[in-house]
C-alpha cells in the first residue's frame, strides 16, 4: 500500500520537474547569457534542498520500479514483495547516504564557482 502511494507521489513530482527541466534546458537555444541566468535560479540553498528531494524521489521510484518489475515478471515476486519493499528502503538509505553529503557540500559551499 505505502509503496504504491509513494510510487505515485514521487512519479507525479518527477513529472512536473521534467516539464520545467525541458523548458529551462531549451533556453540554451536563446543565448549563453539567458541560459546561465536561468540556471542561476537552481544554484541557491533552497533549490539545493529541493534537488536533494528530487534525487530522493528519483532513487525511490527507480528502486521500487525494479521491485514492481520483479513482482510482475517472476513467479516468486508476489510472495516476496514485502521483503523486497524493505530492501528498496535500505538500498534507498544507502544510496542517499552516499549522495547527500557530496551534494549538500556543493550546495552550501558554492561548489567550484
Amino acid at each position, binding site marked *: 500500500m505505502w509503496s504504491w502511494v509513494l510510487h505515485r507521489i514521487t512519479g507525479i513530482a518527477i513529472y512536473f520537474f521534467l516539464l520545467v527541466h525541458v523548458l529551462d534546458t531549451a533556453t540554451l537555444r536563446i543565448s*549563453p547569457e539567458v541560459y*546561465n541566468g536561468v540556471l542561476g535560479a537552481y544554484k541557491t540553498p533552497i533549490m539545493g534542498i529541493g534537488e536533494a528531494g528530487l534525487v530522493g524521489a*528519483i532513487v525511490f521510484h*527507480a528502486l521500487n*520500479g525494479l521491485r514492481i518489475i520483479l513482482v510482475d515478471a517472476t513467479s516468486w515476486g508476489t510472495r516476496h514483495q514485502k521483503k523486497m519493499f524493505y530492501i528498496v528502503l535500505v538500498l534507498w538509505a544507502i544510496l542517499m547516504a552516499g*549522495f547527500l553529503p557530496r*551534494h549538500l557540500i556543493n550546495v552550501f559551499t558554492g561548489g567550484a564557482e
Partner: protein
Amino acid sequence: MTRGKFERLGWIFMRVSGFFLIALIFTHLIVNVLQDGGVHAIDFAFVAGKLANPLWQWFDVTLLWLALIHGTNGMRVVIEDYVYRPLLKRILLGGLAVSTVVLIVLGTLVIFTLDPCPAGSPADLLPSFCSAG
C-alpha cells in the same frame, strides 16, 4: 487498437522504458550533479560542450523521449484514476497530450540544432573549443 490491447502495451512500455530510464537517469545525474562542483558547475559552456558530441545528443534525445512518454503515461493513469467529471478529464488529458508533444518537439530541436559557439557571445561563456584554432 482495443482498449485492453492499449493498456497491455502501456503496461509493457512502463516496465521496459522504466528499466532503461534507470540507467539513463543515473548516468545523467552522475555526469551532471555529481561532477566536481555539482550543479554549480553547470552552465552554457558545460552543456553546449557536451551536446557538441553526437553520443551525448543521442543519449539526451533517448532520455527525453523515454522520460516524457513514461511520465505522460503515468500521469494519464493518475488522471483516469482520480478525475471522474468527463469534461475536466478531457481537458486534463488533452492538455497532457499537447504539452508532451510540444516538449518532445522543442527538446529534440534544441538538442540537434544547438550552436555551441553562437556568434557574438563572449568567449568566456562558451566551450573552450570555440576559441581554439
